């Protein structure tokens, strides 16, 4: 009789408490380390990805600031008009990255727009974002259709 009670109690307690386990999967690994952001400039009329060696990946806004400040002394061109105020506001909502650039549509060519979109998406993906994301541009002066979602032709 007593043995039955002990067995029942042991059975009851054995199921409780936190028991050691084997190795289980804990989901996707975090990402975000890189020697520097990937910036897109123009080389002979085509987009060219270059890694700006800043030592760290940084945010989308930082990558865009670097893009707006130009290619520097490298042998590359940019189709974005130089601006004194190189700060971009970035808002990420779900699959969409919204950028407020300190430029008007006049100040940037279609290739320049691709430069901005590709740089933003690259930084987004490298920061762990979705590869399916789209970019919506907000210019200081807008044209019809300038707000449409855009994707990078290279990615």
């Amino acid at each position, binding site marked *: 009789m007593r043995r039955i009670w002990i067995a*029942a109690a042991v059975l009851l307690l054995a199921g409780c408490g936190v028991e*050691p386990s084997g190795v289980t999967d804990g989901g996707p690994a*975090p990402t975000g380390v890189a020697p520097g952001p990937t910036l897109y400039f123009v080389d002979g009329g085509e987009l060219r990805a270059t890694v700006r060696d800043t030592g760290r990946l940084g945010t989308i806004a930082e990558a865009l600031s670097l893009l707006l400040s130009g290619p520097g002394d490298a042998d590359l061109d940019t189709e974005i008009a130089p601006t004194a105020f190189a700060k971009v506001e970035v808002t990420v909502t779900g699959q969409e990255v919204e950028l407020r650039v300190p430029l008007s549509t006049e100040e940037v060519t279609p290739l320049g727009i691709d430069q901005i979109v590709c740089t933003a998406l690259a930084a987004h993906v490298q920061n762990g974002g979705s590869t399916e994301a789209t970019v919506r541009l907000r210019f200081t002066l807008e044209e019809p259709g300038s707000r449409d979602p855009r994707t990078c032709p290279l990615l």
Partner: protein
Amino acid sequence: MTRFPLRGLRARMIVAFALATMIGAGAASWAGAESASDALVESHQRQLTRTLAEQIAAIAPTLTYPPDQAVLDRLRAAVGPDTTVSFEDLRSSDGADRATAELRGAVRERDRIATQRITADGRPLLLIGAPVMTTAPDGSRTPSGIEVYAARDLGEVEARIDDLAATAIGTAALALPVAGVIALLAAGGVLRPVRELRDTAQRLADGDLDARTPPQGADELAQLTATVNEMAGSLQASMAAMRRMQSDARRFAADVSHELRTPLTTLTAVAEVLADAADRMEETDARESARLAVTEIHRMVRLAEDLMEVSRFDAGTVRPRLEEIDAAEAVRDTLRARGWLDRVELTGPDGIALRAERRRLDVIVANLVGNALRHGAPPVRVRVREAGPEVRIEVADAGPGLPDHVLPHVFDRFYKADDARARTPGSGLGLAIALENARLHGGGLTAGNGDDGGARFVLRLPKEAP
């Protein structure tokens, strides 16, 4: 193991019922607590893992790559204590490294976060191993070589699970009194008919053959009750039949005795006359025939008397007429009446008082001594003595004694030890009647052989007959 005094059907039923209920309630609570605790551990684990991943992801873009010692320390500080960050040969400067080889292997092989529960210093810990990845702009990922190993305490979850278990046990315990009450009621319902049946069986055993239990319902107990009633009925019927046969036999024995008495008396008288006449007969053949007829008449009369006596014993109608007699004197009277005083050696003191019927004692002693004289060899000794509350009368002879195969049958009716000696003057009922007479007085009669080899019969009679 202690033995519980669970002999009664009621106690056993209640315990079995309560036990079954407790096991059921316990199993249900246990299963509930088990799945709840699994879910609790699972969700807590997921949350800890997600938090770590988010912390790493938040700081990763600000880390210099490839990292130096300071960068690793900064990352470690950002994700909290009990964490180790490593990159190739570098390792963050503080924080105990608890990661198992198994976990490290899984982290490097799968390039995904791996978790493992361990127990360290008696506390449950969750180990989380997270590789930090480098993602190319096209989304392809490669390990950066930075690995974060964190240990998180699961003590709080364990405390909550213990609460759950305690609640489960409490719930199961609550079921116990309820189960006890239900078992008590059920046991009462089942056991009442059993008790009634037992009472009936007791009355039957005590001789009340009219006792019956009305069967109720149609269950196994009702079937048992019906069977018991049936058994009581057939017992009653056969008892009645037996009584009727017994009284028939008794009446038959009485009738036979009564009917035979007159012709036997007449026959005896005729035999006397015939014996006298035979002595005076001239013709030898006629005289021999007459003498043979007289012998056979005597034999038949004795046989008939013995048979009547036996049937009276069988019918149970014999009652001894007890009187106070002197044992040795009664034996001596018997011997004297048969003219055996000079052939038998009688020893024994006078004055041993005995309550018995004189005629029956005479029949027993005459039979035993007659047998000794007829089948044994002289000297025949009769010894009367007192043995406690009994009087013992021992008849022994110096003959060859009783063979072993005869001994168990000497008191059987019509038993003849030797077929060749079939025609003896005795009826073959003498010893049987002697034994019945001894028993009638509450005594007994045993046959055996003496130390010197002769047959030895011992009659035991209580001094105060019942």
